[in-house]
């Protein structure tokens, strides 16, 4: 059998969602993954938003390998040994409105691909696709080793470094300016320790974001997510900043782990996994036309990611774009036309699935998040002010305004502060 209706390259969340949605509609689907099994190579922070999963599996989305439901969010600005934290308690686990959960990709991706297999997609693992088959500007198949397999549509779901989006000519090569680098460790604790240290119930967990000292005040941030009996801890930094400041991300990670606000959580834990990965630029990097003749790009391959110093979203958009691509292919089959013109309705489907609106909403954010002061001056300023406010040593207490003014000296002008504040609120 060397012909399918659709071939999907990559069994990450985007690819498996597309394969699932298409196979369910009766398409013959070949899903090819290079890893030994889906998820075996995939890295991410650790949190998945539930809404796309609820749409994909309305009946039984809770069967997903969920580690813990996120019931508390913390954003900490670190400076020196101090931290200023904003805490937000969200819904308790009982609520059906729970917004996100933590997951381990090894389990999550495997489960999602299994769901695709169950509705008839042929899931092949341990095979790397080497090339696209293209003739007269139309993509009509894939090559792996010496073998060629053909299809009406090829969906590239091969992740952030997608060579196939490049090969199909819809995306230029990535340049360092457009990417951040992330490292992540999984640190094994015990279930009880997690629940004690984070003060959460059995299925509950937290999502923490860190900026400031964690990246040595470079653009980026740190994260901590609680799993069942481990935490996912990581640092993401703009790769341009890393090289211009001659900083090693591993070194930042080591120092991050020693910060008192992290130490207290991971003490006595054992590192069981270490990984590194690229992430598209802070903000959005979507490609304007993620389709070509016989070809669609989904998930990270199309640049559908939102990332800033303190939050990362990609899995949800990956799932939604996989569903949108399936809609597009279904419509193309109805008219038996898989040309770029016909597939251009993908933009419409992305919009109706909410992918584009999410990305566009954040479209203004990068300039704000690209602002280096978010990662340097502000964390220092806040920590400095609070430090002085809360240091009681018998000396004369100063007025808040005074402290603030003094702390700002040399770090930032009042004018800049006003401008950043305005810019920030406008883009939120």
């Amino acid at each position: 059998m060397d012909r399918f209706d659709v071939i999907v390259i990559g069994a990450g969340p985007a690819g498996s969602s597309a394969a699932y949605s298409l196979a369910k509609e009766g398409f013959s689907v070949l899903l090819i993954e290079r890893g030994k099994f889906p998820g075996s190579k995939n890295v991410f922070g650790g949190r998945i938003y539930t809404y796309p999963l609820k749409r994909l599996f309305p009946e039984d989305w809770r069967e997903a390998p969920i580690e813990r439901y996120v019931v508390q969010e913390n954003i900490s600005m670190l400076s020196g040994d101090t931290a200023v934290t904003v805490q937000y308690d969200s819904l308790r686990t009982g609520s059906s409105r729970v917004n996100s959960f933590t997951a381990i990709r090894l389990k999550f991706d495997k489960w999602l691909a299994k769901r695709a297999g169950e509705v008839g997609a042929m899931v092949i693992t341990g095979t790397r696709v080497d090339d696209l088959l293209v003739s007269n500007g139309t993509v009509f198949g894939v090559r792996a080793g010496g073998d060629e397999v053909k299809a009406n549509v090829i969906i590239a779901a091969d992740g952030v470094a997608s060579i196939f989006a490049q090969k199909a000519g819809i995306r230029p090569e990535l340049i360092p300016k457009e990417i951040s680098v992330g490292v992540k460790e999984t640190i094994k604790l015990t279930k009880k320790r997690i629940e004690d240290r984070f003060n959460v119930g059995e299925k509950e967990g937290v999502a923490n974001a860190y900026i400031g000292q964690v990246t040595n005040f470079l653009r980026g941030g740190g994260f901590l997510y609680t799993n069942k009996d481990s935490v996912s801890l990581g640092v993401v930094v703009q790769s341009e900043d890393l090289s211009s400041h001659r900083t090693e991300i591993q070194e930042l990670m080591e120092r991050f782990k020693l910060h008192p606000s992290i130490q207290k959580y991971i003490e006595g834990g054992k590192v069981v996994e270490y990984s590194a990965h690229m992430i598209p630029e802070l903000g959005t990097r979507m490609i304007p036309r993620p389709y070509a003749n016989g070809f669609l790009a989904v998930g990270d391959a199309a640049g559908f990611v939102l990332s800033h110093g303190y939050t990362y979203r990609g899995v949800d958009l990956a799932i939604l774009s996989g569903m949108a691509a399936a809609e597009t292919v279904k419509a193309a089959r109805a008219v038996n036309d898989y040309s770029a013109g016909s597939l251009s309705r993908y933009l419409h489907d992305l919009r109706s699935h909410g992918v584009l609106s999410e990305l566009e909403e954040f479209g203004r954010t990068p300039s704000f998040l690209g602002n280096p002061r978010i990662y340097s001056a502000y964390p220092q300023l806040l920590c400095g002010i609070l430090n002085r406010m809360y240091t009681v040593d018998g000396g004369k207490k100063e007025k808040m305004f005074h402290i603030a003014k003094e702390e700002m000296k040399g770090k930032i002008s009042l004018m800049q502060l006003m401008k950043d504040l305005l810019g920030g609120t406008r883009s939120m």
Partner: protein
Amino acid sequence: MPESSELRMVVCIKQVPKAEQLKIDPVKKTLVREGVESEINPSDLHALEMALQLKDKHGGSLLALSMGPPRFIQALETAIGMGADEGILLSDRALGGSDTLPTSHALSKAVEHLGDFDIIFCGEETTDSSTGHVGPGMAANLDLPQLTYVVEVEVRDGHVRAKRAVEDGFEVWETTLPLVITVNHGCNHPREPTLLGKIKARTIGIIDDVNADDVGLDKEKIGLSGSPTVVDKIETVELPDRSGRIYSGEAREAVTKLLDDLEAEGII
């Protein structure tokens, strides 16, 4: 144009726990087989490769046969991915607990059930029990000649010429078809499953509903009751701690120092 007439071949493959993941249950003293990653027994991969090379040269058919639980399907899919034509799993609860005697018996019966073959391939031995009994056992059951520890094989006019590894070198033997061959570990480079091969495995599926009755097995002769082996005792040997000393510097001095130390500690 094939050099001689087409060959009908069968390769017996076993799925074993990955060598580096071998664990012994501290209480039951048996091998832990659940929840560990598994692979095709390495010398069976060499047997597959040898058979595939013959198939490439002479044409014909190649069946992959395994006896074991349903999870062995994975190994048979890999075999088809590499180029086998079909995969057959002999699976039956009654076979559980079989030692090498019933295993050889059951596989021989399965081979008879599946048809006439020119060559029956086995690996030299498995990594999880390493008895090397099964190939020779099958030859005895089927009353066929056998060549063991084979590293190279050639077929011409109904004759087989094979090179086998022995302790201090090689021997070359010749015999007639049909026969049983057990293949020496490391004699070739097993090919990787291809994309089209994997697709074929999924498309045709594994014939996994062959049971003890289908191949005419006598329940008395299989499973625990058919197994004369009694496991008296299993010991795990703890490796001694190594001192891990490194002798650096100029080679002559380092070696002299090493020899002195070995002598001082009474090792040499």
